[in-house]
């Protein structure tokens, strides 16, 4: 039995997709708030001209969190001509006229978005607000009481970023299979992060950072029959991430991490991140690389799975030994065999 079968089981256990029932319930909540946002913004004189889902759900790289929490990123877009110069104003409208009225005690205006938590349903919604001028988007940056120097409409390209992550034009042959493998790799790396870092540090290893690194370093792997080999692909991708230049060595074996957005505003995703975050990220990624190599070198299927469970946590399956010998490496054939007709007497 190939190790890919176990990766597939692991992937099924951690993936969150638009089709999942849990996500559908979350979307119903989100849709009802979005309708109220539309009404409130219309009343305030800057009607919503479009809204869309951004973030990992829209790029097929979302995972189920171990805590069971759901995140939704709902972009709200208003027309540039109607948008107030003070970009925090629509954020206050959303917070006070929609979320607080609906009873969200903890609605918060953060620098890049407004956040709302459905505590009872483990649902967390982020609302980034954009103004749109032609095809150009600008994101409302600034906290509630930010003065003029700390708030701005900053150029952004949310749809461009989404397209960049989902782009498969550079993949030669079976591009869709390669993109699917990339999506799986991102999910594995996100679960690895949630498993291996303390909650505080994990929150600073931003998912979009992992996604951009994996996209730039992605090294697909398929066998001669065209079947995916996620273990090899992940190992070579992680190795490339380590030497790509994201980690800058500092004094005392410490590292600073920096990954730039591949689209506007081209900022460093890890801007302001500490050397502690960078050092932990780099060192744990290096440990991951070693463990993946160990798993590749290990010939016993059960031992292989044990190494991978250590890396990814309990959702990675470890088969039990049995006398029909699931532990023996089995031959893989290119065809099922021909039955035809048969007779006997």
């Amino acid at each position, binding site marked *: 039995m*190939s190790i890919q079968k176990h990766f597939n089981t692991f992937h099924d256990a951690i993936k969150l997709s638009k089709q999942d029932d849990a996500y559908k319930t979350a979307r119903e909540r989100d849709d009802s708030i979005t309708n109220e946002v539309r009404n409130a913004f219309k009343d305030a004189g800057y009607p919503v001209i479009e809204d869309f889902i951004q973030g990992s759900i829209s790029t097929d790289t979302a995972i189920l969190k171990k805590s069971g929490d759901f995140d939704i990123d709902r972009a709200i877009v208003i027309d540039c001509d109607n948008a107030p110069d003070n970009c925090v104003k629509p954020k206050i409208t959303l917070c006070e006229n929609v979320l607080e009225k609906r009873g969200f005690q903890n609605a918060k205006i953060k620098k890049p978005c407004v956040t709302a938590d459905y505590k009872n349903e483990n649902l967390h919604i982020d609302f980034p607000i954009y103004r749109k001028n032609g095809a150009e988007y600008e994101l409302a940056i600034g906290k509630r009481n930010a003065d003029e120097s700390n708030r701005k409409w900053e150029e952004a390209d949310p749809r461009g970023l989404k397209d960049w992550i989902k782009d498969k034009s550079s993949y030669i042959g079976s591009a869709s299979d390669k993109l699917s493998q990339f999506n799986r790799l991102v999910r594995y790396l996100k679960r690895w992060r949630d498993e291996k870092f303390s909650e505080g540090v994990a929150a600073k290893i931003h998912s979009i950072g992992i996604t951009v690194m994996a996209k730039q370093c992605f090294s697909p792997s398929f066998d001669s029959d065209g079947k995916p080999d996620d273990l090899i692909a992940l190992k070579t991708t992680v190795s490339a991430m380590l030497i790509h230049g994201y980690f800058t060595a500092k004094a005392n074996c410490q590292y600073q991490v920096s990954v730039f957005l591949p689209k506007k505003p081209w900022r460093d995703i890890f801007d302001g991140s500490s050397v502690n975050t960078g050092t932990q990220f780099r060192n744990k990624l290096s440990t991951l690389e070693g463990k993946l190599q160990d798993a590749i070198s290990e010939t016993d299927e059960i031992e292989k799975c044990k190494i991978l469970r250590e890396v990814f946590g309990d959702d990675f399956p470890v088969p039990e030994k049995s006398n*029909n010998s699931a532990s*023996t490496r089995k031959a893989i054939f290119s065809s099922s065999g021909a*039955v*035809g007709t048969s*007779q006997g*007497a």
Partner: protein
Amino acid sequence: MGDENAIFKNGGISLNISKDALAVWKNHRQINARDHEKFGVIIGSCSEIKDEYWVESITTPFPNDRSTRYSFLLRDRNHQKAVDLAFVESGGTSIYLGTWHTHPELIPTPSLIDKMDWLSCIGKNPGRQLFFVIVGTKEIRVFVRTSFGFTKLIMES
């Protein structure tokens, strides 16, 4: 017959038959005087170095097959479908491993028609090790083709 796995060996090859397959064979024995022959295909896998084989599942007669007390004709496409499904679901490790059928005799021996058919099965699957099982009313016999013709595997006690 049927309580636990059975292992059959010959030279460098062993065939491990699951207890589920053994139970099906036990239930399909031609014990009554009017029982027709029962038959099907064997689906299983093998180790990378091709010294150990496992019978994972077997098919039983489908509507378009035919049989009498002393003969059978396996022709329903569902046998091939079952093989193809196992192949896909296993990721390419589970394949067609041969055929089985019953004989209304205590210790079964293959007829000339059986052997001709087995040669035809081997011809359709070049390079593959195939196993042919005959289920008697008392014993099960497993045959493979060797340079001496068809030879039975010895059951490990």
